[in-house]
């Protein structure tokens, strides 16, 4: 466990170093074409999944909490509840889990296959830094695109919640969004954004590390992919808890 964590930190440091070497020689650190290919795959490609799942979760959450709150005549708390829960917690968390499963697995399988077929070694043998060439565009793509996906997740969840609130609790769309905006604080948005970047970095690094450290052929790639998804998801949830404790201890009340 500690060994893996130090290896991942090592991977980050060496990737940054290789990029630095490259910049020092007056060249761009990675190929933009690879970067945009990865952002398209990570960002645009994940929009349908992220928005669909978030829409349903937002809807369900509003429906279930609304019925409970209705017994106390407090169903007008639903917009605030869904708004805060998603911007601060569920948006980054759900998106992190979905991206870890969708993109993390793909990165690990891809880099793992390249490692097994000696492609990564061949890149290294040519004198091209494989970390800056292969890892940096991928990690940067998830790091930068995950927060964008979180915004989409938040918006679609709110839409789902607004639709069901209109139908089940007679809260008009307009007042749904007004109540939500009144109650969501800048603090919640910042917490959600910081988490999103952090989760993106974790998913990118874990999946690339797992891919590059594959041993043992096709079965090894399979094992690494499973391990990559499991590790990314648990690490994301772990860091989410840690962030929440820190935020509550430092900033709430």
């Amino acid at each position, binding site marked *: 466990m500690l060994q893996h964590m130090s290896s991942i930190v090592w991977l980050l440091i060496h990737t940054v170093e290789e990029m630095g070497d490259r910049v020092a020689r007056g060249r761009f650190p990675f190929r933009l074409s690879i970067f945009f290919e990865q952002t398209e795959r990570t960002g645009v490609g994940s929009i349908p999944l992220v928005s669909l799942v978030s829409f349903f979760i937002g809807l369900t959450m509003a429906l279930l909490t609304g019925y409970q709150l209705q017994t106390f005549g407090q169903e007008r708390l639903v917009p605030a509840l869904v708004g805060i829960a998603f911007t601060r917690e569920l948006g980054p968390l759900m998106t992190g889990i979905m991206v870890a499963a969708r993109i993390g697995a793909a990165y690990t399988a891809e880099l793992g296959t390249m490692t097994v*077929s000696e492609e990564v070694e061949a890149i290294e*043998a040519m*004198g091209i830094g494989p970390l800056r060439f292969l890892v940096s565009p991928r990690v940067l793509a998830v790091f930068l695109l995950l927060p964008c996906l979180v915004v989409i997740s938040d918006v679609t969840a709110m839409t789902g919640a607004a639709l069901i609130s209109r139908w089940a609790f007679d809260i008009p769309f307009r007042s749904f969004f007004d109540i939500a905006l009144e109650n969501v604080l800048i603090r919640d948005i910042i917490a959600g954004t910081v988490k999103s970047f952090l989760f993106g970095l974790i998913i990118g690094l874990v999946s690339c590390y797992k891919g590059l450290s594959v041993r043992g052929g096709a079965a090894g790639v399979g094992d690494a992919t499973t391990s990559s998804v499991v590790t990314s998801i648990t690490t994301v949830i772990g860091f989410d808890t840690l962030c929440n404790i820190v935020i509550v201890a430092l900033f709430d009340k």
Partner: protein
Amino acid sequence: MNDAEKTIVELRDVHLAFGDNEILSGVNLAIPERGRVVILGQSGGGKSTMLRLILGILKPTSGGVLFKGHDITGMKRRRLNQMRQRMGMVYQYSALISSLSVRDNLSLPLEELTRKTRAEIDKAVDEKLAMVGMTEARDKMPSELSGGMRKRIGLARGIIMDPQLILYDEPSAGLDPVTSSVINELIISLSDAIGATSIIVTHEMESAFKIATHMAMLFQGRIIASDTPENFKSSTDPVVAQFISGDTIGPINEGTAKP
């Protein structure tokens, strides 16, 4: 051989162990410049590992690996990468990047490591493809090529940077006899054409004698013989003699526990 100025690669008392498993136990070998040195040895005996040590991908447990007089074992990555640009490696299974076309595979090192213009790169790619007789494969993907064709593209990629040293890992393994001969002839003509030194790792005797200007035999982690092909053929060393003849009875089977 002993003339230091004419040596391009030198391994000095190289030891390498993975855990308790010692692969190389004191390898001493000097590779003469502009030669075609064949390293013979059993499968899994550490021959390919020697190539990876020369490339600096693996670090020896102890000992030194010198390329043109510079010890690469303790070298900083940046400097090591500069050294690697003067070497070309041809992999057993070609190791072409499967997501890139043949042309992009060849132009990759030029684009990444030099400041050549697009036209210069295209010219170099066409030139190298012509040298291996694969001009028509330029726009194909590696998956569309046969094993022999891939190997030729691998050769072209190995020489794309006009290296001073080319390393071949089992160049004729898994190929039919005719393709194998074509590859052997290519190895000879390519190293002559760009004036490079070649190190070829193989266990196929026929190819070895065709290519070699010098031979070395790796056995149980050490170089036990290093000589010209003629002297190798008439060697009285029981290990060398058994390896060349392919006899099933001899010191090679006794020395290792594995059948």
